[in-house]
């Protein structure tokens, strides 16, 4: 058995490609474990956990490619021979052969009509690339995170003064002219416009609108910090203006985590003074309904409700299945009865930040504030973000988990490891998982977790425990993964699949509440 590390100084590949190479190398004969990744602190931490870190990889910088393999001498040598061919394959598995310009200028020479850029390079380089694209008159979806707020301000000031979109940074999703961009779902075209500072929140609302039978005109993402005092809602206002004058948009849904109060006032004032369309607002967990309604908009308390209100206004309501409260209560009581006395806690493992946030708000009504890496109040911040305790919800798409590695909607590795850990904890009663599908996401996330659920439900049964896993699939039947197929895969292993993130969180909260109640102890 050998541990082999090769460091290639200054050699760069994107995290999606490296994830595919790692998976392929790991499956080769004679390889026990392998990782091919950039030398970020997060990736070194992962190597340490899996016993692949050595002096060479410890000394690698963020600009270096780290190749780490454990296996037989022959297996490792053979894998190293194949490595370069794998690194030079495109993510679709083909050898790169098409022309690829190296700069934005040369791309524009080759295709003068380019009018939109999607940018997902490491955060410290993202602002320069985004500014170059804006200066060439291109609208930008800036997927990269780890971009400073000062850089965001500079980019958005330029974009607004030139009538352009700068969606992001850390903007996960958008739909422009029915084209899904970034992490996005295939939804019906319609008359509902969406502008949101909450990527998976927008995905949840749009997929539920689709399930109700209504459709989307345009969906503009702003990035999560847009409604901060520093940015002042620059792109939210830009998006609202655009949708307000769009002839194909009749209803506008506004989605954000709680904005800074003065920015909330500014947005609501703009809606009151300028907007001629019907507006539905969901400031997830923030904003007073009366102040939203005072400006003539409709207030929705959850993403699910925002989708329902907008669909009703569009003349398509109740197409999507919803859970009645008494049905949730019945399932919760039945499940709670099967738990053993030690099983008390809820663990949410989320790939979607807004879905995690919404769940924490909902379960708070049943079990109080929960621990998190992105908590609702600072006292509940985990000391170690990857070590849940008591009731915990983790947002695994947060910046700290994505430096130099692919987003958890695409790379399920970290969530799989955490699932295995939490499912083995005898104190855990319920695990909540979001399954977000669509373009950009993993090709079969439900398949990955179905295998793990099967294994751990059986382990728990042998140990006298009843492991409850609750999920909801954010996606549509038109997505490449097909939401119906994904739901079926989960259900077949005993996962309780709810029709929305809010319903999944409510059920989990009820189960844990019953599990800890006097009624059950008697």
């Amino acid at each position, binding site marked *: 058995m050998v541990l082999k590390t090769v460091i290639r*100084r*200054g050699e*760069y590949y*994107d*995290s*999606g*490609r490296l994830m595919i190479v790692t998976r392929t190398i790991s499956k080769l004969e004679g390889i026990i474990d392998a990782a091919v990744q950039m030398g970020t602190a997060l990736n070194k931490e992962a190597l340490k956990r899996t016993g692949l870190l050595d002096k060479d990889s410890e000394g690698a*910088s963020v*600009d270096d490619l780290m190749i780490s393999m454990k296996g037989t001498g022959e297996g490792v040598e053979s894998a190293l021979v194949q490595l370069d061919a794998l690194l030079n394959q*495109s*993510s679709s598995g083909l050898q790169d052969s*098409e022309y*690829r*310009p*190296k*700069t*934005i200028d040369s*791309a524009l020479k*080759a*295709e003068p*009509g*380019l*009018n*939109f*850029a*999607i*940018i*997902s*390079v*490491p955060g*410290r*380089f993202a602002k*320069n*690339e985004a500014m170059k*694209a804006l200066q060439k*008159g*291109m*609208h930008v979806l800036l*997927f*990269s995170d780890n971009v400073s707020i000062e850089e965001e301000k500079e980019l958005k000031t330029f974009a607004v003064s*030139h*009538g*352009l*979109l700068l969606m992001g940074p850390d903007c996960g999703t958008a739909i*422009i*002219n029915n*084209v*899904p*961009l*970034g992490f996005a779902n295939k939804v019906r075209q319609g008359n509902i416009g969406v502008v949101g500072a909450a990527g998976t929140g927008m995905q949840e609302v749009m997929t539920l609108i689709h399930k109700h039978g209504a459709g989307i005109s*345009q969906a503009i993402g702003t990035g999560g910090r847009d409604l901060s005092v520093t940015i002042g809602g620059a792109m939210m206002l*830009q*998006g609202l*203006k*655009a949708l307000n*004058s*769009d002839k194909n948009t009749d209803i506008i849904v506004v989605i954000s985590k709680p904005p800074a109060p003065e920015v909330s006032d500014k947005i609501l004032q703009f809606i009151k003074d300028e907007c001629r369309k019907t507006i539905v607002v969901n400031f997830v967990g923030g904003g007073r309904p009366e102040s939203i309604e005072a400006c003539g908009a409709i207030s929705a308390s959850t993403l699910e409700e925002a989708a329902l209100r907008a669909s009703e206004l569009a003349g398509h309501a109740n197409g999507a299945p919803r859970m009645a409260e008494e049905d949730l209560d019945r399932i919760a009581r039945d499940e709670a009865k099967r738990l053993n006395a030690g099983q008390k806690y809820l663990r949410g493992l989320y790939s979607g930040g807004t879905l995690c946030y919404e769940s924490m708000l909902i379960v708070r009504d049943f079990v109080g504030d929960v621990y998190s890496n992105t908590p609702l109040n600072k006292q509940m911040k985990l000391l170690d973000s990857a070590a849940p305790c008591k009731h915990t919800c983790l947002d695994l798409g947060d910046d700290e988990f994505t430096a130099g590695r*692919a987003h958890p909607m695409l790379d399920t590795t970290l969530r799989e490891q955490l699932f295995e850990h939490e499912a083995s904890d005898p104190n855990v009663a319920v695990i909540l998982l979001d399954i977000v599908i669509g*373009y*950009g996401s993993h090709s079969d996330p439900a398949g990955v977790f179905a295998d793990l659920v099967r294994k751990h439900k059986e382990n728990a049964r042998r140990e006298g425990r009843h492991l409850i896993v609750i999920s909801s699939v954010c996606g549509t039947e038109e997505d490449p993964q097909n939401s119906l197929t994904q739901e079926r895969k989960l259900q077949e292993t005993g996962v309780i699949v709810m029709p929305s993130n809010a319903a999944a969180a409510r059920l989990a909260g009820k189960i844990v509440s019953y599990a800890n109640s006097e009624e059950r102890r008697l």
Partner: protein
Amino acid sequence: MNTVNDIFGKQLKILNIGLEQFADDLTSQGIPCIQLDWRPPAQGDPEAADLLSLLLE
């Protein structure tokens, strides 16, 4: 003055800078997309990159 609405209804012609998965997804739907062969500038040293871009201007 340009407005955001100018892009509505127009054919998107996209430049993808970074994760190739996004370009693959667009191409599979028949959306015109060019993938940039992006590398960190000047071995990833932002100061050297800034200097280099000033020299090239």
